[in-house]
């Protein structure tokens, strides 16, 4: 087989493998939940189809409240995040503030959801850092007050926790989209016509930007309506969100609850679909109503106050995140730290020393899983992007949707079915299954992070190389890969971070045999020792951070004498 033929074969196969990896687990997982939801699970004596699980589900007290909570926290946090991002971009797109923020985005995105939520809870709880700092001199309190936050009935803490993670995600997604829709040119034209920045942005950039942000926004809504970790740590408990309740039912000692749990998992899928549909309808309406506004010639829309709001909202988001992380660091060195003491005194390294023995195994297993999943995803993503250069056109909309499938379908809905499938196929749970499961979630993020750089690489580089006699493999290995090393490593670091943060797939597909810093952190969070929880949450943070440091330094080291390469990214 000639080199060119092998190249074509491999490169044409990889996109199909990618599609398979993304869609098969999701679809078969849903199918696996479908049968028990209608009463079919022979191991539990369910041998005929019935609607009983759904009737049982309908009788769950507070079901309506659960649905409301899932919908409100999901849609609310998505709306707030999008508003903060849009107002911020509109006000500061062409200012140094924006450029400074860009460098922070990837590391902020790398903070695992569980770690951020644990940190936020430490910060805002009645006995949290904020109350300690203002007590007793301001509040007169010697004991923590008895207010319900986090865990308030409205889900405000939950919404806040989701927002501080979603804002960096949407910002990062806009980076590429802004270039793609030529935001700078649109802004320049509008501003030269006398529109101030925010109005110019809303009237000229948004109509081009939003279609490119639509799928990321949908992914945010899907995640926010169905996530488990954040809602477990910050959400209310009486009742909880539907997703948390479903996980609870899956683990109910009464095994027959699993029928209802499967119905609940499908209901979760329905809730997410309803949220997406509702958003889509509002989206249509807004577009229709804005058409006139785009061209009505008004040049001001509360520019000053909205810019101010955007600036403070962004500061609040970033500030909360940083303070939450600082709180984690303090708890990790705290001895007995009673309220209202502001700082743990004297600090101690004892917690770290006590924990050290137990950390080696989760850290190495996290690394093994994350490296495996990232490498697998990287090969598939590079193959798919390379296939685009072969076909010379980007992804079809259908393929784009498949890419988002694991982000749009609630993972509680398909993971249970997947475990059933895993057992039926006789596949041993463990490292391999976990790596594959993680890759399902890592791949989309890796693809989204890398695609723009890959597509933007001037095709003349490849043409130059081929006209110099280089075959397609050599062009790929000798030109594209080294030239794109920096963005490839950054994308890999994003994928690595996504893998480190996974909880549910690790637990379910690994049958608990694979213990990562995240499964340890979440299982310890149920044990309530703040010091140990903080240590694991910090490790959850440190591993992705390490990934980003490598991604940043390695190209600088390898190409320290190649200025052209470093400047171009």
């Amino acid at each position, binding site marked *: 087989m000639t080199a060119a033929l092998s190249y074509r074969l491999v490169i044409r196969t990889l996109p199909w493998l990618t599609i398979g990896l993304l869609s098969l687990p999701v679809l078969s997982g849903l199918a696996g939940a479908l049968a028990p939801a209608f009463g079919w699970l022979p191991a539990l004596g369910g041998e005929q189809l019935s609607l009983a699980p759904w009737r049982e589900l309908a009788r769950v007290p507070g079901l309506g409240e659960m649905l409301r909570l899932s919908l409100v926290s999901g849609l609310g946090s998505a709306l707030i995040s999008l508003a903060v991002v849009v107002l911020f971009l509109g006000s500061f797109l062409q200012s140094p503030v924006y450029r400074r923020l860009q460098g922070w985005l990837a590391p902020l995105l790398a903070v695992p959801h569980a770690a951020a939520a644990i940190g936020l809870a430490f910060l805002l709880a009645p006995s949290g850092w904020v109350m300690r700092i203002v007590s007793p001199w301001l509040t007169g309190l010697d*004991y923590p007050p008895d207010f319900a936050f986090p865990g308030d009935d409205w889900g405000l803490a939950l919404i806040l926790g989701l927002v501080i993670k979603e804002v960096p995600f949407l910002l990062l997604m806009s980076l590429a989209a802004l270039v793609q829709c030529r935001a700078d040119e649109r802004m320049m034209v509008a501003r030269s016509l006398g529109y101030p920045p925010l109005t110019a942005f809303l009237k000229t950039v948004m109509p081009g930007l939003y279609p490119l942000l639509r799928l990321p926004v949908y992914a945010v809504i899907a995640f926010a309506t169905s996530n488990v970790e954040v809602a477990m740590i910050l959400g209310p408990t009486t009742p909880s969100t539907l997703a948390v309740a479903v996980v609870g039912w899956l683990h109910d*000692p009464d*095994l027959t609850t699993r029928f209802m749990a499967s119905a609940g998992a499908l209901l979760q899928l329905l809730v997410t679909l309803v949220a997406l549909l509702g958003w889509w309808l509002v989206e249509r309406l807004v577009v229709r109503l804005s058409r006139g506004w785009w061209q009505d010639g008004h040049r001001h829309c509360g520019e000053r106050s909205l810019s101010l709001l955007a600036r403070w909202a962004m500061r609040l988001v970033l500030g909360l995140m940083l303070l939450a992380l600082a709180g984690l660091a303090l708890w990790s060195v705290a001895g007995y730290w009673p309220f209202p003491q502001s700082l743990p005194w004297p600090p101690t390294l004892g917690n770290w020393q006590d924990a050290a023995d137990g950390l080696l195994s989760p850290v190495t297993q996290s690394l093994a899983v994350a490296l495996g999943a990232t490498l697998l995803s990287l090969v598939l993503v590079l193959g798919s992007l390379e296939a685009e250069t072969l076909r010379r056109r980007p992804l079809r909309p259908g393929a784009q949707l498949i890419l988002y499938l694991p982000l749009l379908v609630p993972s509680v809905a398909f993971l249970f079915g997947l475990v059933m499938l895993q057992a039926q196929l006789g596949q041993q749970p463990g490292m391999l299954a976990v790596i594959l499961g993680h890759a399902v979630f890592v791949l989309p993020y890796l693809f989204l992070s890398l695609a723009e750089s890959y597509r933007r690489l001037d095709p003349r580089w490849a043409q130059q190389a081929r006209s110099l006699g280089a075959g397609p493999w050599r062009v790929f290995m000798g030109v594209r890969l080294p030239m794109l090393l920096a963005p490839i490593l950054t994308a890999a670091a994003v994928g690595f971070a996504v893998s480190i943060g996974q909880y549910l797939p690790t637990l379910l597909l690994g049958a608990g045999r694979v213990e990562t810093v995240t*499964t340890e952190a979440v*299982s*310890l969070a149920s044990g*309530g020792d*703040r010091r140990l929880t903080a240590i694991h949450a910090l490790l959850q943070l440190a591993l992705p951070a390490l990934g980003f440091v490598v991604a940043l330094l390695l190209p600088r080291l390898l190409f320290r004498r190649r200025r052209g390469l470093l400047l171009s990214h």
Partner: protein
Amino acid sequence: MRHTRGLLLAAMLAVPGIGQAFELSEWSTVTEAASGQTVYWSAWGGDSRVNGYIDWVAEQVEVRHDIELVHVKVGDIAETVGRILAEKSAGNTQEGTTDLLWINGENFAAMKERELLYGPWAEQLPNFSLTAPEQNPEVREDFTLPVEGYEAPWGRAQITFYYDSARVSEPPRSMPALLEWARENPGRFTYPKPPSFFGTSFLKQALLGLVKTPEVLYEPVDNADFEAVTAPLWRYLDQLHPHLWREGEDFPAGGPKMRQLMGDGSLSLAFTFTPSAPAAGVLDHQLPPSTRSYFLDDGTLGNVHFVAIPFNAQHKAGALVVANFLMSPAAQAHKQDLSVWGDASVLEMSRLSAEQREAFETDSRAAESLPPQAAGALLREPHPSWIEPLESAWRQRYGSQ
């Protein structure tokens, strides 16, 4: 003859995997078969002390029996039960992923009923006789259900109340007194949300303290008028809830979360299932040094916890050896050490040699936080069939406020 049967059995057992062959009645065949096996032990991983103890057990069985013990940490053992169930439904009867699990009560009842357990085996373990089951019948009974050798005891627990003596001078010593105390100290007590283990245990404790005829609770729930029997409990809770933490509209997720609230100073009275846990919490900087603990005057709920082996465990011999080691005087003494875990022993001291007994001497640190030795009658667990109706009745009344 006996020898031939052993050989035959060995040959039969040898089919699925070499090294599995053993006969329970000849312990040496078990230890031989166990050597070199990897045992997956599914156990709650929510407490670093328990995890530390299990790590120690792993080191010990590695050295003593050449067994690699892997602690599969779970948030709730029901996760493992679900997996074994899925394996059974998939026809996996030989190569189960779990070899040993830490279990009791409701989960044991469910697994036994669905024939998900291997056994009987527990009473054939060499160390079982050290528990002196004739004197301590509780090691043969799990939530009133006869164990029948399907699980081996390895520790015991009893509801123990604890409070911050810097803020509370006279803690309540009965259920009615608790209500009075909560009225006077609003927001300073709560209990975990059922169906968490601690939450359901509190419901049972309250029920035992409030019903006139507790005997009915030891029969299956179908034999009783559930509404009538539990009416005093709901009346009690209706009165208690407005005075709880967050006015009873929100409950902590579990016992450890309740301990955290104690550490923060949000609560000044709480309870645990491990009598030594408050003292251990002081040593771990999780609870104020002024923490004190006690039992209720009429006694508190207690039970024994067990390890069981799934019907499809791949490494049964290894699991048997680990279970036997867990009941050994060395393992039990180490477990009872306050600086390790502090979980009470299931062994009958009179069956041990003087030397073995010495190992059980208690740690003197944080001794003032331990409950008084003499106190507290042990109340037996009600029949497990009460649990589900209690939990769903609670959920119906308070689950969605």
